[in-house]
């Protein structure tokens, strides 16, 4: 018998554990990747075309003669470029993504499949209505789910994202005030814990901002609010549950106070995922609220968009809704595209984010009324479990029961030399995406953790163990461990000051060669 003893070594005995630099700069699966401008050329292409016939041009004298410079890649080169780049991203599918206020829940792949059905995806927005009845039906059915879940009579579907939905709601309020001749009502009350988009939106509607402080329990300070109520108040913009992850328990009284002076109640619905199936905002006295389909109803975040922000309106605001909207007429659906004299106008070229509508309805149908309620309860339970389990080592900002997210301050880091940012960067090395930091502004060094219903108990337990261990390590004085982090990410900490001082926003041959 002949025995081959030349084969590969199967034990790591002889392998050194020392750190070393590779000659290429790559690190195994983690490859460095140049820009397309450095690897592609304008003449290369990954798309084949039929031959041109040589028809006489009708471009007039306007043919493009300059060099555009756009680089091309063949398909295999393009695949490698983008796959390598993708591997430098963290994602929900890789682990806990506890970004408070962002609701990073699982994105079911059925929804992706449904959105790509040619009957939805390959449909032109201006096709004759007889050819798009199924699409209009889908919009109508999604509207029905949204109105039923929120307890509101009407929903405007066209807003393209959360902030666009805010704009929709506030424009409806402005239009309603104008219709009543209430030109003196221009002051909008905004709690200091509000999302920054709230004041920015109100200003676009010609309103001025009056900030309301929070009380010690992280809610609206009712005394301060009462003092600010007056005839010139146009309305209030309130997030509920608020950005501290707490239910505004005086919300019904707040609505009454605002309505008492003829104002309107805008509720920022970014956190509606804490209420679905358990509370209908319509029962709280609100007049307008946007939904983030990309948060509450799980359409993917896609690295920052596209979002979708359908906005529910009360009976009082309904006549002012933007165009277009779907209307049932006899056996079919009709699209109302031209504004009457009450509608405040048009927010986008077409009808809204159809691709997101399909995904959201797929999500709703899958869950049903029972599953949606369960998802809400699990999200709130998960957040409370995290809060309770971290309270020994970290510092809950307000304590008590939270809703879908748990807020901590940096009190437990006091005197350690470790700051919230360092703590967050250390989480990256442990394999987690950091929580939301330094928001809301009402809590010092805020850390806002939203686990969502998508995390199993086992996954949460591992996360909790790591967070507690990191907190202990910070208190033990190992500052260098935190200041150096992250070590194991594709890049170390980036110089944001340099980026902002001398902005380099595009590649240019002369500067980057």
């Amino acid at each position, binding site marked *: 018998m002949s025995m081959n003893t030349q084969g590969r070594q199967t034990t790591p005995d002889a392998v050194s554990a020392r750190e070393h630099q590779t000659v290429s700069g790559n690190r195994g699966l983690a490859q460095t990747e140049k820009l397309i401008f450095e690897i592609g050329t*304008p003449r290369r292409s990954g*798309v084949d*075309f039929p031959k*041109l016939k040589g028809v006489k*041009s*009708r*471009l007039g004298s306007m043919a493009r003669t300059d*060099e555009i*410079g756009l680089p091309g*890649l063949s398909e295999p080169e393009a695949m490698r470029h*983008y796959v390598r780049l*993708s591997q430098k*991203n963290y994602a*929900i599918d*890789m682990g806990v993504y506890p970004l408070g206020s*962002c609701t990073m829940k699982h994105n*079911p792949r059925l929804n992706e499949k449904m959105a790509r059905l*040619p009957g939805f*995806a390959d*449909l032109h*927005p*201006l096709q004759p209505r007889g050819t*798009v009845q199924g*699409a209009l*039906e889908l919009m109508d059915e999604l509207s029905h789910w949204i109105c039923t879940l929120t307890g509101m009579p009407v929903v405007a579907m066209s807003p*393209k994202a959360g*902030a*666009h939905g805010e704009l929709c709601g506030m*424009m409806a309020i402005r239009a309603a005030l104008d219709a009543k001749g209430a030109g003196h009502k221009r002051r909008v009350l905004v709690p200091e814990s509000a999302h*920054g*988009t709230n*004041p920015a939106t109100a200003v*676009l509607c*010609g309103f001025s901002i009056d900030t309301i402080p929070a009380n010690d329990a992280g809610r609206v300070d009712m005394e301060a609010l009462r003092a600010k109520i007056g005839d010139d108040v146009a309305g209030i913009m309130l997030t509920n549950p608020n950005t501290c992850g*707490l239910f505004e*328990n005086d919300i019904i009284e707040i609505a009454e106070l605002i309505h008492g002076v003829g104002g309107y109640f805008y509720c920022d619905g970014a956190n509606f995922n804490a209420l679905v*199936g358990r*509370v209908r905002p319509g029962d709280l006295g609100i007049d307008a609220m946007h939904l983030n389909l990309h948060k509450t109803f799980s359409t993917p975040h896609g*690295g920052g968009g596209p979002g979708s922000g359908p906005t529910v309106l009360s009976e009082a605001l309904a006549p002012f809704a*933007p165009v277009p909207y779907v209307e049932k007429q006899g056996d079919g659906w009709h699209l109302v595209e031209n504004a009457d004299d009450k509608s405040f106008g048009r927010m*986008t*070229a077409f009808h809204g*984010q159809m691709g997101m509508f399909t995904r959201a309805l797929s999500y709703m149908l*899958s869950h049903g*009324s029972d599953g949606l309620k369960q*998802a809400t309860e699990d999200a709130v*339970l998960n957040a409370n*479990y995290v809060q309770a389990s971290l309270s020994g080592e970290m510092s809950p900002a307000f304590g008590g*029961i939270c809703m879908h997210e748990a807020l901590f301050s940096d009190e437990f880091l006091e005197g350690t030399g470790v700051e919230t940012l360092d703590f*967050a960067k250390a989480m990256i090395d442990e394999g987690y*995406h950091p929580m939301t930091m330094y928001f809301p502004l009402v809590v010092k060094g805020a850390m806002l953790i939203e686990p969502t*219903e*998508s995390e*199993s108990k086992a996954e949460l337990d591992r996360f909790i163990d790591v967070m507690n261990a990191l907190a202990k390590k910070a208190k033990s004085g190992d500052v260098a461990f935190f200041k150096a982090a992250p070590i194991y990410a594709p890049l*170390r900490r*980036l110089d*944001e000051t340099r*980026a902002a001082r001398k902005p*380099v*926003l595009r590649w240019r041959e002369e500067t980057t060669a």
Partner: protein
Amino acid sequence: MRYLPLNENDRAAMLDVVGVKSVDDLFVDVPEAARLDGLIDLPTHMTEAEVDARLTAMAGKNRAAGAGPFFMGGGAYRHHIPASVDHLIQRSEFLTAYTPYQPEISQGTLQVLFEFQTQVAMLTGMDVANASMYDGSTACGEAVLMACRVKRRKKCVLAPGLHPHYAAVTENLCQYLDISLDIHAPAPGKDVDVLNGLDKDIAAIVVQSPNVFGEIIDLEPYAVAAHAVGALLIAVFTEPVALGAIKSPGEMGADIVVGEGQSIGVGLNFGGPYVGLFACRQKLVRQMPGRVCGETVDAQGKRGYVLTLSTREQHIRREKATSNICTNSGLCTVAFSIHMTLLGEAGLRTLAAINHEKACMLADKLTAIDGVELVTDTFFNEFTLRLPKKASDVVGDMVAQNVIGGLHASRLMDGQDDLLIVCATETNSEADMDAFVSALKGALS
């Protein structure tokens, strides 16, 4: 429920740790009057197969654009998208990531944004671009607001060739800001009217090319006229493929260029999601709305990318922010960028040339029909016909023959009932064109 990992044992153990008896105790802050008992009146959960069947049936009630001859444009265009684009954007790391606020673990998204910004700047002939807006129409509205900020003036002129929905969106965005808009009623061949009566109160003139009727506009005289009164030229486009064939707005002197990017990589999607492109001159960059990605280095000096100039945004400037927009079209920018990379300059130019050829061929075939007149002398892949009949009726008749034969102008504007706006792209075969010709003949007879 297939999407919920917790089971009853987990829930009981976790409630115990929280220190409450039941999940109802977690909702104690909700006013009693607003607590719901039982389930909301909606259907209960469905299996994946059931949902699939239900939505597939609904999709089946639509006539997909590709299910027959299709010649519609008007702000959204049907192009072939390489299969690899959709495959790549469905990678978890692109699909299920959030906004790249943690640059160390978001370099994938950030580098694509940097590449995207450069591609948009090259395409439009501008210095810089942002990381995208909701769509072309909202980008147009934001450009008008930006021009008013830059010039500290409160008036803009919108040309008659601007897509009427873009004008409506811009009007909507400006209506409470004390900005006056001079909106010319849409009509073919009338863009030149905006050159008359410009004054020094004007912050910008907004001109689209190719315009909503398909005409190609030489933007240079508009840039000269705008600059003569100290105003900016905002150039708009709805078909980015055109920029592979016609002069860039930057070359003709535009200061801000906005447009719809849907043609490249995104697909029709019944109107959304789309991707708004926004580019401008370097000196205006601090007033540019929206997210921007910039180059920097990490602690070891390695090149990397971050979101930058964020002080313009709402979370810092709040009511003084340049815009209330805090999102971009994320995944659509990735799709756009991948498709553009697959094309490259050579591919884009060829794609544009084929589109133009198809449109020329179709225009010849259609204008050979008695009574059909070509209104637009120059065009790229979209042109306008004057019909001897009401165009909306003609479109309806053609649908009965399974031909979606263009867009009747009256869908977008008043007073142009006999105009039909027709688009041809690389997706149209000669057989499609012949079917269109015979359907149009039938509808006119």
